[in-house]
Every structure is written in structure tokens, then in C-alpha cells.
């Protein structure tokens, strides 16, 4: 009994495949997420990243391969904010808490705290989603995911609608949560720099059919990575031929790359 509490939770995807009608979207996907670890999934749009995440979130039945998860409290942030239009910001953030049976006062308190932490203003908390900008809506969606204190976060391009300054703030918030709660994160992004800044493992996907073509590990802890490190790693990653073919980039001449590296 007591040992089970201390064992780190684990998400294990083995030989996963998926088809929409006759089209094969995913093929032979293997991946692991352990609590305390951030795994980033990068790849061109349409390669099946969202489908993979939805399968992990249990929103679609798994037909080929298997997904085994020992996480108890996963939270999902969708590619679109998907807020309930008839609920205020505060009630949207508190949705998962209400579902879990948390009392009204407690969930309002936590929702307010998270709303403010994700950079929303006091007066935004009473507004309805249609009164918020796209960036604000994604912040509400992130706050809704963090509010249930998840042990596994599934994020689908969480920061793509945000400006650089706010991105930096939310990276810091996410890293703070990671350090205090040691949660596992599976994050989709098409921003290589974002992946390098936040994640411990980067999985590069290629399209038709969607498959993982490359895996990178970054051993330096995320808190210690500075801009120089991120730029250097990005440049290195962009030199990799698997990454270049996956994103359909033409092979680059090596002297051009060294010049790009100069500023850092």
C-alpha cells in the first residue's frame, strides 16, 4: 500500500496506431512520460499530434497498440480554448473542481488565484468568454487545466496565441508548477525553441503516416537554461537531417548556419 504512493506515475504508449476512415494517421508510436518529466512533441501541422494527444486523454478509443497510464488526475488543454460560452471566466476555470465535488467557496478561491497567476485581470474574471481576446481565452484554458492540480498535463499548442512577454511569464509559471508538484507533461508545440526551453525529451514527428522519427534528450535542468543555451540548441536541432525533412526544410549550407549562431 505505502510503496504505491511513492512510485512515480507513468504514461506508456506502445505501438499506437490510428485511422480516420481508411487514412492511417498514426503508426507505431512509442512514448513514455514519467512524473516530473516534460515531453515535447514537435512536428509539422497535420501530422497527427492532436490525434495522439486525444488518444492519451482517453477521448477516442484505442484500436491499435496500447496506452497504459498510472496517472490519477490528468488535465487536458485543447488546441482551441473550448471554454463554455455560458460560464464566466471564474466558473470556466473552476469547471474541473466543480466536477470533482469541491465546494463553491474553495473552488472560487482557487480559480481566482489561478486566473490572476495566468495573467488575467480582476475584472476579466467576471466576463464571459466572448468578451475576452484569443490570448486571454487560452490563459483561461490553461488556468482551467492547472486548477485541478493535475499529476499529468496534456497540452496542445498551449502558448501559440500569446505574445512573447506573456509566453515567458507562463513558461515561468509552468516551470514553477513542475518543480513544486512534480507533474508529468506531454506538450505539443510547433515552436522548437519552446520545446527546448521547457522539455526534457523532444520527440520529432513526421507526417503521412504520423510517426516519431527522432528523439532528443536535454539533460540540463529547465530552470538553468538561458536564452543562449536555447538558441544554441535550436540551431543544433535544425542541423539534424531528420528534423529538416520532417518540417520539409531544404538542406541548409553549413556556413550559413554558423553565421546564424554568431549572435549568441
Amino acid at each position, binding site marked *: 500500500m505505502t510503496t504505491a504512493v511513492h512510485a512515480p506515475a507513468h504514461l506508456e504508449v506502445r505501438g499506437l496506431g490510428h485511422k480516420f476512415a481508411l487514412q492511417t494517421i498514426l503508426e507505431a508510436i512509442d512514448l513514455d512520460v514519467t512524473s516530473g518529466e516534460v515531453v515535447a512533441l514537435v512536428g509539422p501541422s497535420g501530422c497527427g499530434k492532436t490525434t495522439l494527444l*486525444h488518444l492519451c*486523454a*482517453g*477521448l477516442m478509443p484505442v484500436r491499435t497498440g496500447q496506452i497504459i497510464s498510472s496517472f490519477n488526475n490528468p*488535465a*487536458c488543454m*485543447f488546441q*482551441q480554448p*473550448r471554454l*463554455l*460560452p*455560458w*460560464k464566466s471566466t471564474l466558473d470556466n476555470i473552476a*469547471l*474541473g473542481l*466543480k*466536477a*470533482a465535488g469541491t465546494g463553491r467557496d474553495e473552488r472560487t478561491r482557487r480559480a481566482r488565484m489561478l486566473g490572476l497567476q495566468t495573467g488575467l485581470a480582476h475584472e476579466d474574471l467576471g466576463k*464571459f468568454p*466572448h*468578451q475576452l481576446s484569443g490570448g486571454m481565452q487560452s490563459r483561461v484554458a490553461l488556468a*482551467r487545466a492547472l486548477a*485541478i492540480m493535475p499529476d499529468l498535463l496534456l497540452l496542445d499548442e498551449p502558448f501559440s496565441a500569446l505574445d512573447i512577454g506573456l509566453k515567458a511569464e507562463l513558461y515561468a509559471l509552468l516551470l514553477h508548477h513542475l518543480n513544486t508538484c512534480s507533474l508529468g507533461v506531454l506538450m505539443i508545440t510547433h515552436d522548437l525553441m519552446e520545446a527546448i526551453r521547457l522539455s526534457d525529451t523532444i520527440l520529432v514527428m513526421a507526417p503521412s503516416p504520423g510517426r516519431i522519427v527522432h528523439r532528443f534528450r536535454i539533460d540540463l535542468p529547465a530552470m538553468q537554461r538561458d536564452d543562449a543555451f536555447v538558441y544554441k540548441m535550436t540551431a543544433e536541432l535544425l542541423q539534424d537531417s531528420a528534423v529538416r525533412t520532417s518540417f520539409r526544410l531544404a538542406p541548409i549550407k553549413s556556413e550559413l548556419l554558423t553565421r546564424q549562431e554568431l549572435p549568441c
Partner: protein
Amino acid sequence: MILLRSGLKSFLIYLWSGWGAIASLMLFLAVWEWAGLYYGELILPNPRITFQTLAGLIAEGSAWQELTITARRALIGFGAALAVGSTLGLVAGLSMTALMMSRPIVTVLIGTPPIAWLVLALLWFGNGDGTPIFTVFVACMPIVFVGAMLGARTLDGQLGDVATAYRLPPLMRFTDIVLPHVVSYLFPAWITALGISWKVVVMAELLASSDGVGAALAVSRSHLDTAATLAWITAVVGLLLAVEYLLLEPIKREIERWRVAV
């Protein structure tokens, strides 16, 4: 408390916005008055005489008595249509099989004129309360059904995924995801159905009952009493307008606050 006060404020703003409506109503009365002058009192009594007659009917007590009888019949038929139509419509919207089975029936119901139902009802229920109530029910039910069905059919599957991802229990899934959306379709259908119930009940009473506003109209017609006829019509229309604009419209605004920009 704050919610109540903001509700009251928006209600007052809403009343204030009624000035335009009142102005156009006054214009209508002016045209009526003018037409009354033109055709003479026997054909079209002017508004003043009509309201006086109505005041007389109210004073002697017969107005409220007949209106209560009529309202009771309309509300029973309307309530039954509401319960049956909403439930069946929701089920039909959520299940493809139920939809395929019920659609033709509803089309038949909508296509059949209320007066045809009235004749059938007369044969089945005779001169009692059953005839107007049944006619109101059949006239309103398909409208409520279609509203509920459309509401359930247009449910956003993506929000269903949100409900699954955040592990909403079935009851909360219904109250927090399904209901708010469906109500925005249902409520307008309810308002339409209420209007229809009020018209149909008067028609049914006119042909089938010995009491109620419809019966009173039949009596005033046989006496060639145009003033009383117009007085009854005014009472019926006035009551419907009052219920719709003082009760239903403010409720609709309140529950659909999330749709309009404040």
C-alpha cells in the same frame, strides 16, 4: 444582492426601451380611431368606446371570470405540450433512431391545421374542457418538439470532449453543458408556443365551449355587439402582450446574458 440589483437595473433599462413600442402602439390607436370615424360606430367602434366596454366587463366581474377559465385551459394544454414536446424533442435530438421515427409524425402534426384538430376533438371530447385543452396541446407540441430537437442536435461535440476530459459526472454534464445550450433554442420555442396556445384556445372555445373568452366572443357576435367583440379581443391581446413583454422577454434576456455583449 448585486446580481439582483444589476438584474433590476437591466429590467428598468429594458422598460425604458419600451417607449418606441408604446409610440408605435399609439400610432396604431390613432389609425383605429380615424378608421372608426370613417366607418361609423356600428362597424368599427373607436378605441375609447372599446376600452369603456372592457372597463364595464371588468367592473361587472365577467371579464376576469372568463379570462381565468380561458387561461386555465390554455395553460394546461401549453404545459402538457411543454413537458411532452421538450422531453421527446431532446430524446429525438440525441438519438438518430428516435429522430428518424419522430420526424414524419411531427411534420404531419405541424402540417395539420388546428381547426381540423378541433373538429376531431369535438368528436372525441364533446363540449367539455377536453376539446380546447387537446387542441392547444396538439397545436403547441410540435413547435416545442422542434425547438428541443434542434437544440440537442446542435450540441457542440468539442464541449462534450471537455466534459469527458474534466470528468464531469453525468448530472453535471447535463446541467452545465447540455442544458444551457438547449435552453437557448427551447425558450424561444416556448414563447412562440405560448402565443399559439392563447390564440388556439380562443378559437376552440368559440366553436366548442359554453364558457371562456371564446364563448363570450360567440355571444357578442350573435348579438351583433361589435364593441363587446373588440373589448374581448383587446383583453386577450393585452394579456398576451403583458405576459410576453413583462415576464418572458426579461427572463429570456437574463438567461441569454452570455450571448450579448454587455
